[in-house]
């Protein structure tokens, strides 16, 4: 087992190196000089050069790249933001919590909703219940997150005024007691989590529904029935476990999708997370922040893939035995 994990970790090293290099090149080769952005056009070119020198942008690209890699590897220093001079790692650390909260809650919500509705639709397959759920889920599957978000915002925050429309906490958050703080978080996260989670739940739903339907038709379920095993046990222990497998292998695709979705949702609901930090950094040509955020996102994706592979081999004995035989 450990050798499999080690091999997969080693495998992902070139992926990370190439990914980081590509990001660096994209950022630095793109038109639009951050040096110019801080300038009044009427000022002299010398001042522009001073600014470029201060940010280290006047050197050849490969030296900039080498300096940057050296700093990141040996000092864990991603450089300071061009705008407020704070270290990138600090800026991102404060932006990480909202994104993790948002993406994590959305994933849990999507899993629970997708699995429950998927099973319900599968055991009632081709009835009115099944068709209604399937059509609603098809709608959510095709609905862009930004539209859903705007509609939720309009109806629940503006028209009905039930839930706050922006930010992770209220202004008076620090004066609340523990329970108050908790409900404050829930109130602020409810709509964003729904916006991010519903389309994802629809994806899970499709897999679970067809997986359970297929499993219910199979011989081993018939065998289990014949041995007199209870209906619920068959459903949750046998069918569900097998239909969860494709979802675990999907994790590698879901994590990038969640990050992309979080960008949109954070912009709509003004959550101070990674996505919004990234968007404003792109607009402002804040190179260190963009690079640090991309690397973090890239690591999250690689780690997600690793976790998916490992979980998969733990759950599905066939894969475990196969790799053992090969190694």
């Amino acid at each position, binding site marked *: 087992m450990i050798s499999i994990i080690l091999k997969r970790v080693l495998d992902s090293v*070139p*992926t990370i190196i*190439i*990914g980081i290099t*590509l*990001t660096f090149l*994209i*950022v630095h080769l*793109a*038109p*639009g000089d951050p040096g110019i952005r801080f300038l009044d056009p009427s000022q002299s070119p010398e001042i522009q050069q001073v600014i470029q020198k201060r940010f280290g942008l006047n050197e050849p690209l490969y030296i900039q790249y080498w300096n940057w890699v050296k700093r990141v590897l040996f000092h864990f220093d991603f450089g300071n933001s061009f705008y407020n001079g704070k270290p990138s790692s600090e800026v991102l650390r404060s932006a990480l919590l909202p994104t993790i909260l948002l993406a994590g809650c959305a994933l849990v919500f999507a899993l629970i909703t997708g699995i429950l509705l998927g099973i319900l639709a599968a055991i009632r397959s081709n009835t009115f219940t099944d068709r209604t759920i*399937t*059509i609603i889920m*098809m*709608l959510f*599957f*095709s*609905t*862009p*997150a*930004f*539209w859903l978000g*705007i*509609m939720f*915002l*309009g109806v629940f925050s*503006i*028209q009905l005024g039930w839930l706050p429309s922006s930010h992770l906490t209220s202004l008076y958050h620090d004066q609340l007691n523990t329970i108050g703080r908790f409900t404050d978080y829930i109130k602020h996260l409810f709509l964003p989590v729904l916006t991010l989670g519903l389309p994802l739940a629809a994806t899970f739903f*499709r897999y679970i*529904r*067809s997986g359970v*339907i*297929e499993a219910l038709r199979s011989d081993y379920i018939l065998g289990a029935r014949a041995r007199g095993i209870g209906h619920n046990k068959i459903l949750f222990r046998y069918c569900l476990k097998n239909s969860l497998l494709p979802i675990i292998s999907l994790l*590698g*695709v879901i994590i*990038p*999708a969640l*990050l*992309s*979705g979080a*960008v*949109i949702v954070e*912009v*709509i609901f003004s959550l101070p997370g990674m996505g919004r930090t*990234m*968007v404003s950094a*792109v*607009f402002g*040509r804040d190179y260190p922040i*963009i690079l640090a955020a*991309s690397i973090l*996102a*890239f690591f999250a*994706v*690689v780690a997600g*893939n690793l976790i998916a592979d490992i979980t998969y081999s733990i759950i599905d004995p066939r894969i475990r035995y196969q790799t053992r035989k090969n190694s």
Partner: protein
Amino acid sequence: MKRIVDFICSDKSLYVGSILIGIIIIFSLIGPSLSPYNYSSQNLSEALQSPSVSHPLGTDYYGRDVLARMMHGGQITLGIALLATTIAVLIGMIIGLISAFVGGWLDRILMRLVDIMLGFPKLFIILLVIGMGYSSIGLIILFLAIFSWMEIARIVRSEVLVIKEQLYIKSAEAIGLRRRRIIFIHILPNVMGTIIVSSVLLISTLILIESSISFLGLGVQPPNASWGTILTEGRFDPIGTWWISVFSGIFIIAAIIGFNLIGDGLRNILDPKFTGNS
């Protein structure tokens, strides 16, 4: 013509999807010539009118007719998605074929590249690329294509690897047919079905991504409008100017559902083994 109609009617998803997409295409292509309004002409005295007889979908902040803008937006949105898909499919097919036929180290490198590209959070990276560069429609199409060919390449490679080993290809090689002929006449037609299904599904993904980028303000720039750009204009007052965001959203959803249904339907027909849902 009758054969095409029969083919479309043979599957319910395909039928509904084709009708939806047909309506949208006719609406965007023929609509502008029937509409009395131009998509970009402003009329400030009629700004922000809710839907009425003269403006069925209302007007926006500059008094432009939303219906006329939706028709124009349809051309841009669908045009971008279709062109980008075509380029992505071409790149994917070429790389998949090379990977399957050359094999060895080139195959390993190409497949590793596919892994890396799939690992990028797509929207994140397209946002980065377009946000850093100039956002012209041509560049958007190009970047969408560059970040979407991977799945096609994977599918083509794995299908070709299977077909390559089959007896009729072996015998084609044995009688000395040229490789180009084998690829284009004997192998590609057999992979085409799968390619078509995944490219139709890719169209709907690209519509989604393009409207997301335009929604963030980095995509199609005014006075041009894609559905995503129009949606952004209604975003700041979802209640007071509900018609802008609601109608543009409905068009985006209808197009995505339409292409998804067509893709599902084609898959049901081409691959009867697929148990399929919806």
